[in-house]
């Protein structure tokens, strides 16, 4: 036991070491040199990012978009899973170069990372089973509502309905499973996913209207303007050439109803 106590003290002292603050080179050069860009994307969020059951590879709107951006930059994209709670640490800690994972551009998140321009705008809403009879967010008072840890959905729901009881899972699939198993009465999530769930699960139904606006931005490392500009410009190229519209049509069956904040050359 004394050994353990000594070990504890040693650990605390060792990690009190001072940091250093040397500037880093731009990711753009590093990525071009490696020829490969590590992208964090969702694996549990169809149609944005999910795992194809036959190939075992990630597929989705965001996966295609990331692949197009990689083509623009002349590199290959390698995908890594990003959960809602891990996507910001992944960028901050340098495990990935770019996050394309249904991440809402929020002002408070700008403390830790930088965002590219929005590539999609959606909102949040609750989904429930038909047999709960819930038709409005106000009816969620005192009910168990599932959300994913680290995402916006939980805190946003509490702003609209402070009396809801949040049950936080690691991934969207678990939240959906809990809903189907009647452990929770509703799930709150981004509407792109809600629409997909309702389309593929006839026993689910949407609850009321959207109560937030979620512009999705891609996450990049802080203070790396060259990298951020490169991604923005790649996005605009993809928009100009019509590839964005093709990808959107492929995954959503319709043309996009919004415009990315485009600017001329």
């Amino acid at each position: 036991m004394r050994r353990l106590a000594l070990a504890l003290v040693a650990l605390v002292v060792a990690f009190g070491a001072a940091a250093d603050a040397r500037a880093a080179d731009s990711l753009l050069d590093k990525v071009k040199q490696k020829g490969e860009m590590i992208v964090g994307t969702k694996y549990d969020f169809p149609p944005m990012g999910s795992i194809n059951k036959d190939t075992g590879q990630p597929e989705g709107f965001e996966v295609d978009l990331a692949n197009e951006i990689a083509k623009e930059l002349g590199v290959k994209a390698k995908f890594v899973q990003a959960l809602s709670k891990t996507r910001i640490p992944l960028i901050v800690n340098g495990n990935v170069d770019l996050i394309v994972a249904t991440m809402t551009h929020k002002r408070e998140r700008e403390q830790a990372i930088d965002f590219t321009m929005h590539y999609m705008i959606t909102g949040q809403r609750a989904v429930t089973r038909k047999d709960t009879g819930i038709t409005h967010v106000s009816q969620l008072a005192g009910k168990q509502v599932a959300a994913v840890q680290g995402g916006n959905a939980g805190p946003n729901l509490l702003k609209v309905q402070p009396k809801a009881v949040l049950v936080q899972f690691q991934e969207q699939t678990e939240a959906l499973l809990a809903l189907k198993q009647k452990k929770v009465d509703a799930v709150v999530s981004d509407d792109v996913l809600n629409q997909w769930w309702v389309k593929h699960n006839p026993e689910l139904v949407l609850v009321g209207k959207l109560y937030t606006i979620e512009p999705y931005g891609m996450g990049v490392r802080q203070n790396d303007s060259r990298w951020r500009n490169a991604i923005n410009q790649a996005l605009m190229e993809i928009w100009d050439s019509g590839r964005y519209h093709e990808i959107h049509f492929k995954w959503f069956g319709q043309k996009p109803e919004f415009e990315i904040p485009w600017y001329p050359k």
Partner: protein
Amino acid sequence: MADAVLSRTAAARAARRWQWFETPRERRAFLLVWGGLAALVVWYFFFGPRAQYDYNWRWSIVWQYRRFLLWGVGTTLYIFAWSLVFSLVLGIFCGIGRTTNVRWVRALSVGYVEIFRNIPLLVQMWWAYFGLQQVVNAVINDPLGLRILIPSTFACILALSLYTGAYMGEVVRSGIRSIPRGQWEAATSTGLSRAQTWRHVVLPQALVIVIPPMASEVLNIIKNSAIAMTIAITDLMFYSQKIEEETFAGFEAYTAGTLLFLLLTLLAVGAIYLVQWLLGLKVRSAG
């Protein structure tokens, strides 16, 4: 008289043991190995490849978010307490079951131990939370219109108790087997029944013998309870991640969580020492 001699030599041995280096060559070897390692670490952190990384340390986060950490510790302790009780009971019964002469009881105990020791705890917890719920839904809820839900803490405690109980059963079994057969025979010859032998002769000795390995199983309950985070339980691990989410200070958050786990482990070890001391036993460290 013999004690005096023994304690003198023991003291002498202890005094010699605390001498760090026996020869100057050892002292040089020590400085070379550990000094070189330390120099390497310092160089790597401040001048080498890692130096390029920019990270500002914010240890005040830990104090600011102490509320979260306390809630996490509370939940972990709650799970720990319940799992401890159930796994101790299960372990003792399983240990007795494995050494009894009744064949079906022995077979049942062996089956229990083998099944629950050879499946990862993670799988067991998810099975208890999602799998069992599906069975309950299909068999009880839907036909009868009820709504029996398996709460996540229940699933966690169930899985953790069954898992640790299997290991504890093995430990108890080894303790029981270490009691010499002669004591069994002596007990029978003085007219004690089987149950009385168990209660007055075998178990008291066996349980005392196995305290060190049991202690390490108890510590394992605390560590294994971290897995509960994956089924939506807000324990210490969950809150470490939550702090990291809100402050983006991953290193500090996880270090705080790790240190708290280590602290809980220390507290558990201290509690076990206390129990040993209160029972008048010689205090031995965990295995």
